[in-house]
């Protein structure tokens, strides 16, 4: 089913008597594919409004991400949360949509400085599981009118409603970007170096560690400012070793695209895990695991793991001991999403029951039944 309008979508959902698998471009089957008949948003597409002077873009949910990014690039702007492309990591094909980005709250390395997708989401339109057309938020940056269902929808994987339109705050693209590279650091030293950099006034917009390879930082902005800040940062990090600065735009872009998309794990055999933890806890959690490979982003706060099948228990034990959560993006089993404490799970189930009383939207995702 591929509705062309919000009203068509509402009619489909109202009339549905069996589960629906909600899909944008189908490139992000995080935690496995939901069961049910395919319901695609791909025909509800197009940029509805773009005001560069107000840093605002409104697009229908099925709009291809690249169409949004191209429109922004023409005006020297971008999605600052740097949504990753899951295709290489998950082995999917298709066209990522802006609605899919929002539904999975997809962000990239810049999340550590600029914020996540949910931080840039200004408004949503959706059809919930009862077929209700609901609007929340708007297209302005400051809006506290009523409850914030905008953030509730971001990252809810289509289990509360099908997005039809999203409004996003966009930001100017910088004039220049450089990568600072350190090498020879173990995980704990690397995370300490990244923490030092992120705690500086030099506005680091990327902070990653590829064990055994390199520890990387990114600075972006006006050319003169970037050069100045890179030099100051290199001095600050001198205790951690020699810093090389790379400023070729294509190389810098490629380096951070690879980190964003976890290129090092593409085509590799094993389960893929994504951990969100307190950055300085990350090396300790990794030290307690065997047979895994790790990549650190967000200064250590985001850990990508390539792990053997059946690692869920060990990974979650390590995370639970320190705080945070772990999601399996690729691999078999019913335990992809991190279990929630009982009272929080009860609230989540309560919301799901209200927004999708018949449990027909993406059943099985987000530990929903």
């Amino acid at each position: 089913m591929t509705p062309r309008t919000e009203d068509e979508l509402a009619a489909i959902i109202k009339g549905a008597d069996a589960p629906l698998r909600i899909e944008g471009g189908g490139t992000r089957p995080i935690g496995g594919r939901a069961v049910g008949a395919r319901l695609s948003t791909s025909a509800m597409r197009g940029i509805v409004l773009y005001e560069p002077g107000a840093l605002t873009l409104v697009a229908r949910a099925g709009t291809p991400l690249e169409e949004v990014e191209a429109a922004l690039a023409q005006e020297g702007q971008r999605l600052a949360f740097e949504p990753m492309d899951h295709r290489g990591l998950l082995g999917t094909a298709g066209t990522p949509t802006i609605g899919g980005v929002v539904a999975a709250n997809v962000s990239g390395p810049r999340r550590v400085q600029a914020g996540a997708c949910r931080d840039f989401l200004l408004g949503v339109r959706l059809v919930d599981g009862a077929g209700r057309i609901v609007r929340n938020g708007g297209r302005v940056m400051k809006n506290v009118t009523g409850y914030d269902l905008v953030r509730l929808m971001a990252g809810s994987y289509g289990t509360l409603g099908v997005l039809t339109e999203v409004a996003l705050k966009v930001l100017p693209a910088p004039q220049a970007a450089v990568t600072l590279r350190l090498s020879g650091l173990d995980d704990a030293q690397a995370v300490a170096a990244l923490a030092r950099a992120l705690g500086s006034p030099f506005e680091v917009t990327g902070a990653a560690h590829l064990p055994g390879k390199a520890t990387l930082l990114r600075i972006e902005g006006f050319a003169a400012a970037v050069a100045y800040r890179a030099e100051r940062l290199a001095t600050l990090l001198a205790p951690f070793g020699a810093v090389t600065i790379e400023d070729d735009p294509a190389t810098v872009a490629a380096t951070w695209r690879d980190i964003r998309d976890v290129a090092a794990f593409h085509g590799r055999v094993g389960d893929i895990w994504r951990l969100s933890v307190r950055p300085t806890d990350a090396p300790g959690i990794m030290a307690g695991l065997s047979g895994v490979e790790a990549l650190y982003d967000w200064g250590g706060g985001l850990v990508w793991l390539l792990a053997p099948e059946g690692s869920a228990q060990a990974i979650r034990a390590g995370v639970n001991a320190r705080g945070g959560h772990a999601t399996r993006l690729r691999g078999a089993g019913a335990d992809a999403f991190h279990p929630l404490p009982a009272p929080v799970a009860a609230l989540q189930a309560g919301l799901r029951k209200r927004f999708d009383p018949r449990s027909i939207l993406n059943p099985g995702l987000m530990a929903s039944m």
Partner: protein
Amino acid sequence: MQMPAPNPAILSRKAELVARLRAVLPADAVIADPAETRAYECDALTAYRCPPMAAILPSSTQQVSDALAICHEMGVPVVPRGSGTSLSGGALPTADSVILGVARMTAVLETDFDNRFIRVQAGRTNLSVTGAVEAQGFFYAPDPSSQLACAIGGNIAMNSGGAHCLRYGVTTNNLMGVTMVLMDGTVIELGGAHLDAPGYDLLGLVCGSEGQLGVVTEATLRILHKPEGARPVLIGFDSNEVAGACVSDIIKAGVLPVAIEFMDRPCIRATEDFAHAGYPDCEALLIVEVEGSEAEIDAQLALIEGIARRHDPVELRQSRSAEESAKIWLGRKSAFGAMGQINDYMCLDGTIPVSALPLVLRRIGEMSKEFGLDVANVFHAGDGNMHPLILFDANRPGDLETCEAFGAEILKLCVEVGGCLTGEHGVGIEKRDLMGHQYGSEDLAAQMDVKDVFDPGWLLNPAKVFPLDASRARRAARGRAA
């Protein structure tokens, strides 16, 4: 302002309630004497007052949990209160409610500079959060103008903003986690020291829910290293349109100032008479502030100056020193005080798309003549958050009502042009009855569904946010359930 009639059955059990609360809270933490509960009869929206049945001042999450469990069991409404600085009546009691004040919960629980967060109790003031980390060069970014007094718990309830949102976002963008007590006393943790949480974004849902979903007792907040420096430029124009176009051009040019403040002629005049900041005599004035090293600031201000020159400013004054910066900010920071000198005023808080600025200011000017009340406009221009100040005389019969009607028309205009009723002050009781102008019945129903899930008895912060007609059936259902 219509409020639900107090429930006589609850009022008749006051003695029992107070005794039970005294059993779980320190003796001086339960206030039941009408002479003392008067202190809690209003917040900063002083036009509306109603003393609560009792007030409690717990000092720990456990005490909050114990007290809420008792109120829940007895069916007593609870109104959470931070520092009582709400401009929308967010902490206005009902006569049959208990005020739960977090003023005694001010401790810093943890600071972690490597992971860049601070964990505090909810009663700690906004400014003293920064105070706890500034020696190490850090700060907490959201800066509502009441930051000296307002509590973090209140900031979370209202998703407070401030002047620097364009760059740093509002509370929800700087909040990493909370400890929260549900109405039945259940304690939950949402988020924490890591950057995102599993499951639905309940943290984002709670932030800005005006104390209606739970009582936040502790918060984990993102802290940032201070920039090396900051300096403003002041630019005067002979029309609002040109000033608005200049704002748009600055943003389009790729500069992201930390603040772009806009003042119109009535506001400039009033502040000039009051603060003598040396502002030019013009129609519209912008204060644009940028951050970074000295060289970065120079480069950004030069770029902004180049853009502004193309719009023929009547005055352009770049700050070269801390002293000059203070002088430029002096008038803006005195704006509200200056208005208070002239008259009583009502401060509105709508947000509009920046492109609608000239139209909205022109319409406000016309309405000002229709209603016979003066308006001065102060405006966070970068993010479209307007603060029209309507001047009235509280001692003149009918003036407050005219002022409220005028204010409602301005907010409706904000919605009409694609904006919203409130950018940072919250709905409270003040804008409750205007919600139908922004949202349709299904939109409101979806929000009230959330309330049903978190607080099925509708006991937390009653009669706020949703029009009473819209919530009547749900509130009645709670009576049947109980």
